[in-house]
């Protein structure tokens, strides 16, 4: 009985409490930088596409909403097309975790409503940004051992020249 009255009283007191609702369109919520929103493809510090079309993100995606095709130019791999179907994406961030080159990144933007469903399929032009996203200094080809024009094997950062395995000399 007193429990009931106390409940009533405490509920009544909530009249003076601050409301927790964020009145969204007027006051915008503070989104942390690592918020999982709209997906982008970033570029490396030299302004080249980071994505190497390894397909790891497409494999990791639990809802299979990433589709891409590999193309090659001067020893560099890049996606010929890169398509994300945002009407299926669940914004889990697995693609970002799977990506070996920090190319695919989720951003704190969620305002991507559309009236027509096909408009939610983003092509590479829609995804690609001109900056580096969350990782300003990273460039995959500078640290990897892949051979590209202007950088031979063994010339990457923190990399030693390749060992000639057929030679017995130290």
């Amino acid at each position, binding site marked *: 009985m007193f429990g009931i009255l106390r409940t009533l009283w*405490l*509920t009544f007191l909530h009249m003076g409490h601050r409301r*927790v609702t964020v*009145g969204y369109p007027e006051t915008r919520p503070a989104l942390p930088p690592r918020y999982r929103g709209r997906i982008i493809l970033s570029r490396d510090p030299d302004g080249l596409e980071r994505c190497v079309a390894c397909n790891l993100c497409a494999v990791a995606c639990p809802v299979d909403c990433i589709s891409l095709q590999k193309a090659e130019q001067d020893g560099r791999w890049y996606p010929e097309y890169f398509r994300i179907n945002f009407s299926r994406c669940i914004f889990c961030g697995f693609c970002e975790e799977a990506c070996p080159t920090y190319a695919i990144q989720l951003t704190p933007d969620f305002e991507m409503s559309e009236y027509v469903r096909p408009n939610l399929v983003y092509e590479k032009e829609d995804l690609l940004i001109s900056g580096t996203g969350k990782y300003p200094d990273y460039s995959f080809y500078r640290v990897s051992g892949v051979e590209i024009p202007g950088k031979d094997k063994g010339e990457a950062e923190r990399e030693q020249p390749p060992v000639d395995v057929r030679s017995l000399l130290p």
Partner: protein
Amino acid sequence: MTPPPLVVIAATLVVLLGLATMLTWVERRLLGLWQDRYGPNRVGPGGLFQAVADGIKILFKQDWIPPFADRPVFVLAPAIGMMTVLLAFGVIPVTALWSIAGDLNVGLLFVFATMGLGVYSVVLAGWASNSKYALLGGMRAAAQMISYEVFMGLSTLGVVMTTGSFSLRDIVQAQAGLWFVIPQCLGFVVFLMAGIAETHRLPFDLPEGENELGAGFHTEYSGMKFGMFFLSEYAGIVLVSALVTTLYLGGWQGPVLPPALWFAAKTGALVCLFILLRAALPRPRYDQLMALGWKILLPLSLLNIVATGAVLLLRAPG
């Protein structure tokens, strides 16, 4: 001067239906307030036109009658609900002069009679829907409302005995010195709880019982028929609040302000109490509800009658 009856009828109808509609908004805003959120605040200033928007939406919904339902009864049920509530308002004295039926000498009995008929609305709705959840809801409503009606009547007997009249106007006039809520506090509490059960509002909304019965007796209803149930529920809240005001809180009486305003203020406060109850309390189990009714509230109301009778006898001259 008594206003002409047609004016009173029209005014009551308009005010009541408007009030019942607005209450949907008031309730949601108040619930929001007590739960640290906003509630509807988009349509119009402070969301004031939310009720209008809901009304338009519900009018344009497909008015669907399930093929397995008993058509005539299915259509009739919501109308009965609305009708009984409106009928009961006929005898509520808003001020000394302002009531539709004038001064009916069995006013209180009339209210109970119409409220008793209100059960039919719920039971028939549950029956005509021809689906098990609706039927369960209807059956619960029948048991709940009939058992709570018993001591709803009994709890007011104290008031009637003290006044010596069933006329609501006499009852209000008898409270000129002291509101009945003080000498009849037991009856007041019992009546209030019975009133909540009677309007099947939370925490006694077992006929609806969303988490076990879908939506109870109105599971199969949609469109404006559902809207009718909804409106009659809110009108029922206003009715019970007005009744409590009349019986226990001195009706229109109060200093300074005009009588109608006093009546409105008291009724409004009670409506807010109804909403607060909804915001704060969980729903009891069904057997708990029945046990509370028969094992606690019924003896309490009998005790109230005996005590009131004893006091009256002792006070009686000679």
